[in-house]
Each structure stands twice: as C-alpha cells, then as structure tokens.
C-alpha cells in the first residue's frame, strides 16, 4: 500500500491550528505560574512543624501524584457543575492543571529545600539576617536555582499533558487536530503537523525559562556557572 501525504489539504486550516496552539500556550502559562505558587506553598507547608498543615500538604501531594490527570480534570469539570458552579472549559482546565502541576512542583521544591546545607542557614543567622531575609535569599532562591532544570521540565511536561483538556471541550491544539482529522480524513498529516507544533511550543517554553533563569539568578548571568 503506497502512502500518499497531502499536507496542503490540512495546512489550509492553519488559522485553526494557530488558535489551538495559542490556547495550549495560554493554558500552560496560567497553570505554570499558579502551579509554581501552589507547589511552593505546599512544599513549605510540608516542611513546617505544624502536623496538621504538614499532613494536609502531604495528603494533597500524594493524592494528586497517584491519580491520572484525566480523572482529576473530569472530577473538577463535572464535580463543580454538579454542585451548581458553572465555569468555562478554559477556567476548569487551568484549575485542574494547576492542581496537578502544583503537587509535582511541591515534591521538586521539597528536594530543593532539603539540599540547602544547615550551615548556610546558621551562617545567615550569625550575620543577623531577619527571618524573612533568610527565607528569601538563603533558602528559597538558592533552592529554586538548584532544582530549576527539573522544574522547567515539569512545566514543559504540563504543557504537553494539557492535550487531554480536549476531553472537556477546551479547544486546545489536540482538540483542533481531532476535529480537523475527522473532517478531512487526513489523520496522519494532521498529527504530524500537530507533533511539530508541540515541539515548537516546547522550544518556545524552554527559551522562555532560560531567559527567566538569567533574570532570576544573577550568579548564572555573571559567572555563567550553575550553583
């Protein structure tokens, strides 16, 4: 059987592909920012001496890390609607992705916190830095710098995983592809194009994170060496 690829027939739908790619990027951007905040809070919470807060954070992280993303999305989408709360598919998708990536971020951040040597904190105390200064300069920023590569990988993975949001009618890139292939019967071409678009989106995100790293970590900017 000879395989004939007809890309022009599919490529003429480029406005749809573009709209899908933009929505995917928007989903990823919102979920990354919110998820980083949520995850850092959860990691801090897990390290506190308050057993109740630490337990709650641990339960959150373990529940989310041991259930499939699709199930979480359905729970938020249909669960909220059953309670009478109606949100757009986009809002639900961002919320579900945030909850999901927050748990993974928490584990990565916890590793970062644990990698800070005790002596570094004691030295800061010896220099009479305030608690807030210690937390920001001596613990949080160096911890983020240590786990930065792992964090960025997680957020790129999140962007790729957002493809399951097509299930709840969010018209992101995969949803667009599913529709176009069912309309044109050109499944192979459609998914090749979509795969290439996902690679481009990943590269865009990685470039963004690299730039952000230069801003966040002066050491890297000035010396060019990682911590």
């Amino acid at each position, binding site marked *: 059987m000879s395989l004939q690829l007809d890309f022009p027939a599919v490529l003429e739908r480029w406005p749809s592909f573009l709209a899908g790619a933009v929505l995917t990027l928007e989903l990823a951007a919102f979920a990354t920012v919110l998820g980083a905040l949520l995850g850092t809070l959860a990691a801090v919470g897990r390290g506190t001496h308050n057993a109740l807060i630490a337990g709650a954070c641990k339960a959150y992280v373990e529940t989310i890390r041991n259930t499939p993303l699709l199930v979480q999305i359905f729970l938020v989408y249909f669960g909220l609607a059953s309670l009478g709360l109606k949100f757009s598919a986009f809002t639900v998708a961002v919320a579900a992705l945030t909850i999901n990536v927050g748990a993974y971020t928490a584990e990565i951040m916890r590793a970062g916190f644990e990698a800070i040597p005790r002596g570094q904190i004691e030295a800061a105390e010896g220099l009479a830095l305030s608690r807030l200064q210690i937390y920001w300069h001596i613990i949080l920023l160096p911890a983020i710098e240590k786990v930065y590569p792992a964090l960025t990988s997680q957020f790129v993975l999140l962007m790729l995983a957002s493809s399951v949001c097509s299930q709840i009618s969010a018209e992101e890139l995969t949803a667009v592809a599913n529709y176009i292939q069912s309309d044109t*019967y050109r499944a192979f071409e459609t998914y090749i194009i979509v795969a290439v678009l996902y690679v481009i989106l990943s590269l865009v995100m990685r470039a963004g994170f690299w730039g952000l790293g230069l801003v966040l970590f002066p050491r890297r900017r000035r010396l060019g060496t990682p911590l």
Partner: protein
Amino acid sequence: MTKKTLLGAAAALCGLIMMAATPASADLLDDIMKAKKIRISTDLAIPPSGMMDSSMKPTGSDVEVAQLLAKDWGLELEFIQTTGATRIPNVLTGKADIIISTLSVTPDRAKVIDFTKRYATLQSDVGCLKSSTVKDWPDLKDKSIGVSRGTTQDTTLSNMKDKDLKIARYDDDATMVTAAVSGQVDCVASSATIINQIGVKNPSRVFESRIPLATFDLAIGLKKEEPRLMDKLNAWINENVKNGKLNAIYKKFHGVELPPEMRS
C-alpha cells in the same frame, strides 16, 4: 484510518474471497428458506438499538425488528454479533444474511451493499433543557451547544458560520451526555434518542428536541444482486409500517415516534 479506507479494504478483501468461491448459490432467499434460519448482523453494544438485558439476552429496537422478521417468515433467528465497522463485511463474506443494525443509508455504503426501504429513521436535533426558552437558531446565541467531536452534527453546526454558535466538543457521546446531565451545557446537538436519554439519567434535567437538524434513513443491508430477497424484505417493511408494528418498536426503545409518514 478513515471509514472510507476501511470500507474499501473490506470490499477489496471480500471481492477476493468471493472470486475464490463463486458462485456458491444462485439465490440467497432460497438458501435462507431451505436452512429455515436467518442470520442477522446486529451490534449488541449500542443501546437502545442493540444491547443485552439483565439476563444477558439480546434486546433493543433492532433486536425486536429482527425477531419480528424471523417470526413473520417462520424462521429460526441467529444473531451474528458485530461492531459498527464489521457490519458490512459480515454480509459481504457470507457470515450473515442481512444487516439490521442502525445502518444509515449513505452513498459510500451503497457502492458495496444494497439497501432496502427504510424501516426506521435516525433524527438528529438540537435539544435543550425543558425549562429553557430556545425555539429557533437566534435563541441559541451565547448558549454552549454540546456535540460529539467529528459527528455529522458537529460538522453541520460548524459549517453554520453565519449563526455565531458556541460549540462545546466532547470526544464521545458518553462525555457529552455527562456534560448535559451535570449542567455544563444546556443544549446538545445529537440524535433524538440521546437527547431523551439525558432526562432518564437525571430527571431534574430533562432535555427536549427543539430544532431539527437532519434525518437519516435506517435500512436493512444485504449483499448486492439479491433481487428476490430485496423484494421480500421491502414488502415486509411496507406491511409493518402500515400495521404500526415498526413504529411501536421504535417508540418502546427510543421514546419518540417515527416521522408521521412512517406511522400507520
């Protein structure tokens, strides 16, 4: 893989098989009558047309149509279980005599098999929550309409660019129904049967058909070049449209009646 290629591949395969074993018999109707048994290809996993009841016996509207046919002709009935994609190959390869399995009449299919007259229809509509005031297209403005992605309903709505519709696409009927049952959407574009089922699943959210979209004819499918069997099947369909039996079966399972011209 598209339906068209599948169909084409199946047809080519069947052509080969038939060439190897031609011509086994002159007339399928004679064979059926001689065997005192008719083998009918039916999908038993698409409620309410074909399904299993609690004691694992086949039931559904297509099942009852098949049973009625076998009874009227005094034949034993054997169901050849099938899926949507293998319905047509079953009769082409001679595993089954005819197809009664929500088979809608399409030009592509008519190239490989023959269709009888319609014995039922598949009505697709825009259905909305009973309490909503939607009566016609302009009322749908700002309302999300749930559809299964890639179905004929999706394509129909997506092509109505001038109407400015908000379409929420789900990957299958089950997810779309859940969206309607749980309140994510107040309107859906689907078959009249599925629109009715939403209210069965959640009595506090009953949906009604409001705007008709399209009607597909459902017919019995059989191998090409079997004129005597075709005539007998058509005569049987005419008779049972007239005496109202086909409408009664349809209403029993789908909750709606066949179009007026198909009632007694």
